[in-house]
Structure formats: C-alpha cells, structure tokens
C-alpha cells in the first residue's frame, strides 16, 4: 500500500461543513440571514433564559425584602443591621461570588441566582422601607382616629401610599438584574451575556454582538416601560411626572 492510501484509509474523514454566506465570512456589521436562521436555536432560548433568571431573582428578592421591610417598619432597630448586611452582599463583586459558589451550590441556576437575589435585597429593602416610612404622621393619626387596626392601617393606608416608591424600587432592581445577569454569564453560562462572551472568542462575531446586546437592551427598556405603566395604573393620584 502506498503511504497516501494508508493515510486515506486510516486518517479521519474531514467532511464539508457547509458554506456560510459572505456576510458571515467577512464579519459584516449585522447578518440578518444568520440572525434569523439562528434565532430559534440560539437567541430565543437565551432570551427566555435571561427573562427567567430575572423574574426568579426579582420574585424571591422581593419576597425576602418585603418581609424584612415589614419587620423593620415595626421594629426600627432592625433597619440598620439589615441595611448593613444587604449592603455587604451588594459589594461583593458578582464575578467573584459566582466563582466561589460553584463548588458549593453546583452548576445550576442556583449559583447565578444567589448573587442576583442578594443584589436586589438592598434596593428593594431600602425602597420598601422608605415607602412605608414615608407615610406622614398626620395620615397615620387620621387612620388611627377612624379606628383602623394596625393590620388595616398597613393594608389600607400605608402600603397603597408606599406603592409608588416600592414599584420604583422594583424598577431599579429589575434593570439592575438584567444588567448583572448579562455579566454573570461570564461564569454561569445562561442568558444573553453568554452569547456576547462567546462572540468575543469567535473571531469577534459582529452579528452576535449586535443581536445579543440589542436583545438585552430591548428587554431592559421593555421591562422598565412596563413597570412605569404599572406604577401609573396602580397610583392614579401620583401620575405627576417626577424625576426618578
């Protein structure tokens, strides 16, 4: 057998992997065709993942913050320590936190969620408490005066009045998480950020940069806009344009 035939017989067969259009091969600014082709397999799943990450972090973060804020509203002395702990959690850079957590909490969503949730705690706790405390003494006195119980005061007076500030806090928390989750993909491979980091070591693939980044921006703006509308719906008496 000749050497070439031996090589052909025993070496691997390298198949043709298909051609790509010239836009992709020359890394054009944005290759619509490639984006559309890969929407279902690449962009859409990552977008949905990103939304899921955000929603879970928000729901859990808000639940914890709300309970803490109610407690601190009743017992003032709780406010400084809770603020301190949540601030501390807030200052641990997300990347370090993720990497430390992997051996402990594993490779699932939990590892990303823990830092995301802890970042929302400070904003949500502070704003919920500020909203509740912002109800003026006169209003409280009036409520007591007409015979409302503490529980009724909370549900019928304080919470509704605190709603604008609470929702404003949720707005900030939402866009913060969307932004953080994008960076978090550096260690936890979920969400749109993963596509951005992948593109960096795929020959700086422009279409992926623009697609993934653009989707994240759209997501943040849509979420923010939705919450603004929600805020206006919930508080018809507070629709005056305020700088937030």
């Amino acid at each position: 057998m000749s050497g070439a035939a031996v090589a052909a017989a025993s070496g691997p067969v390298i198949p043709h992997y298909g051609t790509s259009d010239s836009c992709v091969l020359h890394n054009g600014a944005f290759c619509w065709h490639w984006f559309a082709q890969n929407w279902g397999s690449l962009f859409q799943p990552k977008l949905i993942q990103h939304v899921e990450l955000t929603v879970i972090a928000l729901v859990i973060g808000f639940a914890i913050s709300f309970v803490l804020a109610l407690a601190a509203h009743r017992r003032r002395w709780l406010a400084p320590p809770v603020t301190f702990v949540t601030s501390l959690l807030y200052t641990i850079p997300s990347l370090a936190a993720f990497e430390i957590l992997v051996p402990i909490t594993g490779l699932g969503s939990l590892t990303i969620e823990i830092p995301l949730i802890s970042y929302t705690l400070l904003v949500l706790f502070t704003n919920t408490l500020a909203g509740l405390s912002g109800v003026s003494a006169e209003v409280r006195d009036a409520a007591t005066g007409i015979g409302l119980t503490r529980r009724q005061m909370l549900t019928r007076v304080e919470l509704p009045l605190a709603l604008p500030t609470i929702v404003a806090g949720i707005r900030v928390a939402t866009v913060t998480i969307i932004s953080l989750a994008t960076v978090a993909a550096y260690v936890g491979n979920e969400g749109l950020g993963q596509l951005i980091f992948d593109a960096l070591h795929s020959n700086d693939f422009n279409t992926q940069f623009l697609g993934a980044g653009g989707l994240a921006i759209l997501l943040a703006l849509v979420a923010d806009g939705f919450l603004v509308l929600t805020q206006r719906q919930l508080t018809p008496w507070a629709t005056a344009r305020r700088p937030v």
Partner: protein
Amino acid sequence: MKASTQKGRRGAIGACLVVAMAATLAACGSSGNKSSSGASGAKTSSGANTSNLPSGQPGKGKPPITMGDKNFEEEYLLGYLYTDALQSKGYTVTLKPNIGSSEIIDKALTSGQIDMYPEYDGVIYQVIAGHTDNPISAKQTYDTSQKFEQARGFTLLQPTPFQDADGVATTHAYATQHHLKTIADLKGVGPFTYGGPPENATRLQGVLGLQQDYGLTNLKFVPLTAGSQYQALDAGQVNSIAIFTTDGQLSTGKYAVLDDTKHIFGFQQVAPVVKTSLISSEGPAFAQILNAVSAKLTFPAIQQMNSAVVIAHQDPATVAKKFLDANGLG
C-alpha cells in the same frame, strides 16, 4: 466478540499500519505547523482504530454519565464529539457545556458535579498539578498528568493526536521574507513586535519565555485586545502574534506558525479525564468509544472544525455530528 487469535493477528498488522500512518500524517500535515507532529508525542494508541469500535448498543442499561466542557469553542466541540459518540451507542450522557476555565471545572469534577471532561494534559501538568518546570516531552506530560489524576481517583483515557498549545505566528510573507521556520529564527530579524493579550507580558509561556529561553531580546511586546490578534497581524500593526496552534484562522494558509523547538509552550494533547470508578461501571465499550473518537482527532480534523465554528459560525453540535457521521462514529 471475535476469536482471540484473529484479534491477535489483526493487532500486529494494525500496529504496523498505525506506525506507517503516523509517519505519513506527520509528513503530509506539517507545512510549518509544529503540532501536527503531535503523533510523535505520546502515541495515539496501540490499536485504537475504528475496527475495534463495539457494535450494537453497549451503553444501554449502564449508569448515566455527566460530562462537562470548558469555556471556549474547541472544548464545546470536544464535549459534543464525546457525548454524541457515547449516546449513539446507547449511553445516557448529560452534557453540561461551558462550565468555566480549568480551575473551575476541576472543582466541578472533584466535587462530583461532573464525572468527566476533556482536558489538555499540559494544563493538568502546570495549572492543576502545579508543576513549575517545563516538561520535556509529550509522553512525560501525559504520564505525569496521568499519575497525578490517578492519585485523585480519576484516569486519563488515550490522548488525541492533535495538540493545542500556545504558539507564535507571523504572516506567510513575513516568514518567507525573513526565512523563518522556528521561533529561534526570530533572533535574526532585528527589532520586531509581538502582539498578544496583556497578561502575556509576564508569562513564561509568553513574552518572558520568549525573551529568556529563546534569547529574543529584540522582541517588543504590544498588548492587544482579546480576539484581535489576527486582525492586528493582517493590518500590519504587529510582526508576530500569540496564537493557539489549532485556531480556525490558521487553516486559511495566510499565516505561518513558527516551530517551538525549545518547547516553552509545552505539550498539550487532549484526553478525557474520567472518574476511575466510572470506567469499570460503564463497561469496556465506554473507553473504547472515547478512544476511537480521540484517535480521529488529528490536527487538520480539529482545525477544520474550529474553522467551521469560529469563522463560518456553524453550530458546534452540528459540526461535531457531521464529523462523527463521516467517520463511522455517530
């Protein structure tokens, strides 16, 4: 299973063919690429040719396997290649891609989150085992890494023919003009620039090694942003760049990779790192399949796959599947 005498004779002929093949591939595949002669390093195998691939579905009923891979495209390909090959033989494999860098994925391995992942033996040698010296051969790299892993309860299966190590590349024109074949030849070009990521400046497998071990005092380091090395080289901003030897961009033929004759960049064959107990509990076909896949991963094979993923932006799972199908492993 075939009769042992037939297998024995087959084995002898197989061994001769493997040696001849290795020599031929080394000759055909080189053209300035050092690592194509990776076959001259730790032997790919004695007898890992696909005629030994088990038939049927030996994986059915075996315990499930969790495989991981690291955070870059070549690892994604390896993950899909090994997973797909096992799955088509009936194994239950869950792939957890893009776990992170060596440090992170090693923690995932030792803490039981994953059972196996593909790793570069040079990385095990220096990063995970922590040896500070430079290994002198591919075999030493593999053997030392194997000893290290086995002491921890893991085993390296057979390594791939290809190596993916750091390297130095110039444009073809520059190499021709200055008669460059090896990194050492750079000594004679006068002052030249070398571009790479910022951290390269203090690495022994980078600027330090080039200046100290190769004596390239005429080297001027230019920090470049990630992923922009090839662009910078094309634009003439630098004379030479730091590369990885299996980069997809290198398959275009526009560049010349200089031989690392002093092996400052070490040896980097890939081998699946597997929990030792898994090898027995999954049956003999398990290792056979993985070794059969590894044996096919020559330098041109992996480089073409990298090119398809990184340049043509094909989906790595699809590219891996096509390769396996073309080689009777899918």
